[in-house]
């Protein structure tokens, strides 16, 4: 039997390590393509400054990349170490995209990143450019396979339960990889990475412009980043909308939590701009609503309605009642494999097996589950509303803020006014943390909104965890906390230091005004 403290601690550990890993991944996704774009300009125009630009940003890329790789190892381990039932129950499906990620994407990224770093003197410019593109392609393909795996958890496609092996098994590989959730989420997430890189490059460049250092490099980098950023931000928002549209059908409970939708209402439905949802009272406090907007956003029409939490709980209750015979049939099949009666009973209730597991948390012998236990389990079927509601709003507001910032940046750049707008350059520096926060908020919406399931509607979170002791979990949490805190301090220190030092000017290729400005900045600083 599962110790529920261990489940909570396992969730905490997974969330912390995944959120931490996800600080580094988006920058890798985006910066790898920005590097490829910069180097393309170098190879096609032959201007040395672009080689210098590429090499400078690749230094920062590598500092970030190392920690992304290191913390990615944790993710590879953690399914097995902490979510062992999850791993054996859906490993037949979920393991495949993870293995293919290694085979097709990570090998490419990791092998060529070595050549990208060490190969400048040994490769012809065209060859090196190809290597840089392969790094970008590898990292983005890696995201694709990870998100295909994640989409299976969000919207299980192409799988069925096999009573002979007591686990979920693949029924269609193409259904798995062409899941609509995977498509929308991959584009949304990878482009969010491009936004992250654009804000980062623009912010660091703005800092140089403010300090009047490395002006040529900073000006050109800023321009490329801004162009990249405005397109990417528009893309993220469009795809975010598409993802919401897909998700609304696949996970009505997540949608209801995102919108704080306790009661089912008639279309056209109002949108809660701000509200303070209370799980206990099943109501919002201090809601500020905008009429019509929810129907428009979610169903792309004025007549579409969305089920509220009251209705979703009723549906869950019915499905739990139907899932109970599925669980009892499975227990019979485990004791006596191939039993015809049990198999027939199982097949009649198979689609609600996961809901049967949901009540097993309260009634280990599900056949004796009481009405009260079923009601509690049905209430569990709704995620915690407030964190999902607020994470969603934080993500959207930050996304819109970045769009406004990039539009303004494009206008100023086109009018050649950026360097005179010192307030805007300062703003650009302060924008650097914004995409990182938005990315984290997005992860929270997707994963907290999926609760109480690890695989939506199929496998509850409470069953998925490994059967460890609390002591083991405290040990591992403490270890991760100590290591990861040290790592981030070291990483931030090296990042800031490398940025402060700026590009290597000893190559003798920098323009004179940059060198002069540099020297002056050097004197000014002491």
């Amino acid at each position: 039997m599962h110790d529920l403290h261990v489940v909570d601690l396992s969730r905490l550990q997974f969330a912390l390590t995944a959120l931490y890993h996800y600080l580094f991944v988006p920058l890798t996704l985006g910066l790898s393509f920005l590097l490829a774009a910069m180097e393309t300009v170098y190879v096609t125009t032959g201007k040395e400054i672009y080689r210098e630009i590429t090499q400078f940003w690749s230094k920062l890329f590598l500092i970030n990349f190392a920690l992304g790789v290191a913390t990615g190892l944790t993710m590879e381990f953690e399914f097995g170490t902490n979510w062992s039932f999850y791993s054996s129950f859906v490993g037949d499906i979920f393991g495949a995209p993870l293995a293919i990620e290694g085979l097709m994407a990570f090998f490419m990224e990791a092998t060529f990143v070595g050549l990208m770093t060490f190969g400048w003197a040994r490769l012809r410019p065209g060859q090196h450019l190809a290597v840089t593109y392969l790094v970008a392609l590898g990292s983005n393909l890696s995201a694709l396979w990870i998100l295909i795996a994640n989409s299976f958890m969000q919207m299980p496609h192409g799988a069925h339960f096999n009573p002979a092996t007591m686990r979920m098994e693949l029924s269609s590989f193409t259904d798995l990889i062409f899941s609509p959730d995977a498509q929308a989420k991959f584009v949304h997430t990878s482009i969010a990475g491009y936004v992250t890189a654009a804000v980062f490059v623009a912010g660091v460049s703005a800092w140089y412009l403010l300090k009047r250092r490395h002006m040529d490099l900073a000006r050109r980098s800023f321009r490329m980043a801004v162009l990249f950023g405005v397109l990417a931000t528009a893309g993220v928002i469009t795809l975010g909308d598409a993802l919401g549209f897909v998700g609304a059908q696949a996970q009505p409970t997540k949608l209801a939590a995102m919108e704080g939708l306790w009661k089912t209402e008639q279309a056209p439905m109002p949108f809660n701009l701000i509200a303070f949802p209370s799980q206990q009272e099943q109501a919002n406090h201090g809601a500020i609503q905008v009429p019509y907007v929810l129907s428009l956003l979610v169903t792309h029409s004025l007549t579409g309605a969305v089920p509220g939490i009251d209705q979703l709980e009723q549906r869950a209750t019915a499905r739990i009642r139907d899932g109970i015979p599925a669980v009892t049939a499975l227990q019979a099949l485990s004791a006596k494999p191939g039993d015809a009666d049990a198999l027939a009973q199982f097949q009649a209730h198979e689609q609600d097996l996961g809901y049967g597991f949901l009540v097993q948390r309260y009634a280990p012998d599900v056949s004796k589950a009481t009405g009260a236990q079923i009601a509690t389990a049905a209430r569990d079927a709704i995620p915690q509303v407030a964190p999902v509601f607020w994470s969603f709003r934080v993500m959207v507001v930050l996304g819109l803020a970045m769009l406004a910032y990039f539009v303004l940046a494009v206008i100023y750049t086109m009018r050649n006014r950026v360097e005179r707008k010192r307030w805007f350059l300062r703003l650009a520096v302060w924008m650097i943390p914004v995409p990182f926060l938005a990315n984290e908020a997005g992860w929270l919406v997707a994963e907290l909104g999926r609760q109480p399931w690890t695989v939506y509607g199929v496998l509850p979170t409470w069953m998925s965890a490994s059967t460890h002791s609390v002591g083991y979990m405290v040990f591992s949490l403490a270890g991760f906390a100590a290591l990861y805190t040290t790592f981030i301090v070291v990483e931030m220190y090296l990042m800031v230091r490398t940025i402060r030092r700026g590009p290597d000017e000893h190559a003798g290729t920098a323009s004179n005004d940059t060198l002069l400005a540099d020297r002056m900045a050097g004197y000014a600083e002491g």
Partner: protein
Amino acid sequence: MELYAILQCAWWLLLGVLLLGLAVMVGMDMGVGSILRYVGRTDAERRVALNIVGPHWDGNQVWFVLGGGAVFAAFPLIYATAFSGFYVVMLLLLWSMILRPLGFEYRSKLSSAAWRNVWDWALLVSGLVPMVVFGAAIGNLFHGVPFHFSWNLTSTYTGSFLGLFNPFAILCGLLSLSLSVFMGAVTVMNGATDVIHERARTLARAGAALAIVLFAAGGFWVHGMTGYVRVAGPGAGVAQTPLQQQVMLGAGAWLANFHAHPLLWALPGVGFAGMLLGLAVAGARRSHLAWWLGALAWLGVLGTAGAALFPFLLPSSSVPAQSLTVWNASSSRLTLTWMLGFTAVFVPLVIWYTSWAFYVMRGKVSAADVVANEHAY
């Protein structure tokens, strides 16, 4: 033979290939980490050693990631049971391994001697600990591990952390470490000259000599060890759970496959040949050939272990009947088929571009090169 059974056997072999890739490619880099402080006495010398594997360690590490991913995809019950059962050991392995990317990438960013010294220790730990754990994990398979399943296949591990470090497991861990030291040392020999080359040569010979002794001792040990035998239950190619078989224990049972198929004795033969010739060839400074002989030694060692255990993957010492085998722990036919397709296309591709990367970066690394290249580690 049923197609599913063929797929299961194919994936058992492929798992061996991937573990071999892990042992050879990751083992070589970890060996360099383990011997870094010895082959390099000065900072410049250590940087030479680091930059020999510098362009490749990240790509090589993917063999490890892929090994984990392939176990997950092809034998999910093994991945789930072993990773959660070996929790503390897995965390030590993980924590030591995640120091490595940072060690390579961050070590030479600052010139402070204390900073570099800390990272040199980190690289040593992250080279040594994972190789010992890798070997010890394989060693534990021979004794079996205490775990059992509930009706729905929730696994529970009932052993202790220290129980995983029994004498035979430690022997296997040391064998794995010596082979990795050998591979790391011949890699350093291949890329370095003069004093670094000479120190690496000493270590390569020590690594090979120790490996020969440990491999022989391990063989005698297994000879008298209690092994596992499947006596009843659904066979190959039948969808099943680990709750449906009967398993007996028998002294010397791990040699049953060798008695049934004497050709298998070639595997330990290959292992010894790789080590003995590797010892001689490294002594003769033919480092490139010595590297290939080291890979051959790994093939022999892992092949011997796999052949002895087959069809067992993870025997249960507390409930032997619930031992995990190739037949009851594998993925479904469809998953194995798709994965085989991807592997058949991508593993040759990976080997091809990895070889190209080594070809591009071929030649000796000198202290002057390291200082001149601002991208060097």
